[in-house]
């Protein structure tokens, strides 16, 4: 079996309408992968930047996977939420990206989008907040149902991940 270490952190998010943000993140893998150590999902703190637009979290990610095959390479999913002055939480974006497969240090910018409802819902969203959310974010991974969504582009989340791969070259994997 080969082992994969993902060591890094979620730096922060930028480009969203308001900056009081927090992030729910998780790593999703195929069936051949096994998590040996680390937490594969979590939620950051709420960060309210005083100056500038970028909300910084510096949330650590430290995962150790063992795998029997190359299928189902880990994918990272992110949900960026906004907490406003009154304590209400509102979804600001979903983002999905693959964990890099080449060893080394990677700086990843994962862009996010938010589902849009009808124009009435959009109007209400402008005043009251809220807005449509996905019933089950995991369905997005298969990609088959995506075409039914109408979304709008939101900001992007910056991550820095270091990837260490072990025993992959013993099985003839080049990456």
């Amino acid at each position, binding site marked *: 079996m080969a082992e994969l270490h993902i060591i890094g952190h979620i730096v922060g998010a930028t480009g969203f309408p308001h900056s009081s943000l927090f992030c729910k993140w998780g790593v999703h893998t195929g069936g051949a992968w096994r998590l040996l150590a680390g937490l594969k999902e979590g939620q950051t703190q709420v960060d309210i930047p005083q100056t500038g637009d970028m909300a910084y979290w510096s949330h650590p990610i430290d995962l150790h996977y063992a795998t*029997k095959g*190359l299928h189902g390479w880990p994918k990272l999913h992110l949900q960026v939420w906004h907490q406003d002055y009154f304590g209400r939480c509102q979804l600001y974006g979903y983002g999905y990206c693959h964990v890099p497969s080449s060893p080394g240090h990677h700086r990843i910018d994962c862009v996010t989008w938010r589902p849009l409802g009808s124009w009435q819902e959009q109007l209400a969203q402008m005043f009251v907040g809220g807005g449509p959310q996905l019933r089950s974010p995991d369905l997005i991974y298969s*990609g088959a149902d*995506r075409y039914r969504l109408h979304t709008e582009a939101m900001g992007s989340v910056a991550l820095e991940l270091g990837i260490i791969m072990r025993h992959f070259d013993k099985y003839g994997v080049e990456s």
Partner: protein
Amino acid sequence: MTTCRVRVERVTSTAALSKHLQQQVLSQPGGGAIELETLTSRGQTEGDNEEELEVGWQEKLFSQYEMELFQNESACQTPLDRQYHTEVKALNKAKGRRNKRIFTYTDHDRYTSCLALQQLQTSSDLLSTTKSSPTFLAERMASVRHRRQDRRTMDGSVPKSKIVNWEPTAEFVKSSHVVNNAMQTMHIMGDLAPAGRMGQKENEYLLVTIKTDGSGTVIVKPDFNDDKEPYRIVTAGDKREVWRLTVKNMCTPMQPEEKEREQNVYKDLYVRHKEYLNSLVGQDFEMPPVGILRYMMNAEIVSAKGFEYDNLYIHFFMELPNNWSSLPFQTLSGVTQTCRAKTLGKENVAFFSYPFSFEAFYMSEKESEESIPQWPVIYFKVLSLDSWQRFRTEGYGYLLFPAVPGKQTITCHTWRPLQTGTVSALRRFFIGGSPELEDHSYVRIPGTFKGERLSRFGFCTETTGSVTFNLHCIQQARAFVDATMLKKRRQNVFDQLGGFSQQGAVCTILEAFQRARKKMQDARESLPRDLVHTTSQLQVESSA
């Protein structure tokens, strides 16, 4: 047993002279003839000018001042004081204490923490200016009481409740704002008063400080100097005297058997942990069949920008050239969601964040003369769909799978076929609809192309925006297990010859791949069928 030997010696003129004379005498040949006794100073007892003492860890030695203090029972306030009182009484009954000038403050004494602050105010050894008051942080660090912190957890677990302390007390602030390792301290002090005036607190000087924490760090300040020049201490007061201080380490080293035992314990621990991890991980890994290169790509469509209309979506599909095949359930096409763009800088950008993965197998049918195989291609088109259900093609593009594994970010530019004339422009604007390509592979090399020169003369297009992809490519083949060794060796030769190492790497991989495959084929023919182990699920279909 941890001990150290401390020696203080007053420097007086006669002592210096006698030492100098002694050295002179010793350096002469046959110098042992002169009696050294004639050169020792008289009139002053030994104990007044020098003292050498061996001090153990946390061994309490009383000073003159403390002896006098703890003799009275009324001066004792804490149980520790009372204990000292009994010890002093016992010492007085016995032959007295064995130290005269050198004494110690152990961890439990109340003076131990005050000394740091005192020292801070008097010493100015950090900077060259004499009048510099200690900074705010230095004061904080010095006044921290070095006590054991039981509540600090070492494993970094997060407490479930009370993460934030909204009303910190002054004590809490002092102990958590500065670095506060739990250290056991011991000060070795010297009463460096002139003869006959011992027992006063002003003449106490700090000689050596020894600190240790539970994890095996021992700090000795000043350091052992038995092989170097002794330290000089200048006393304050009317008579400025110079004392020499020597500190020597007298600890017995650990026995070699004990050391070995410790090493063995560590080795066992690590080996056991490694075995545990190995048991979790296992030994098998899915390998492609012999002679087949598996190409796996994890990609995501990141964004599209610079297009004319809004609400974009991308429809893409992959094409496999000859000798490539894929699994039956593998989807080779996809459609993203429709995304409304936002303005970023000067352009409108739509974010898709659409991950997809793709796996294909390459098997060369014959020993081909072509050294570089044809790689698969993704053809995509960008369309816009607005609320009036108007459809427009925004652009066509293609992306060639990279030959080198690794991470790549590729931006593909797109174009749209254009019909000159106002009619088509009006139609595009009002009702939607625009000319579309019948054969998508026309974007790159049409499938029906035969010949040497591709001519697109007469075809009119308009440049539209660009689409960004993130690609992570992995290649796997059995031949690579040996090829990595060959590649490493071959690269050196290429570098020596001045060749391009990247191209060389690709060629050498393929060469080694062909060679290994040939070897495997020959070996396979000579073996009976059932000994060859292949993954049964994989059905290799060669594309028509």
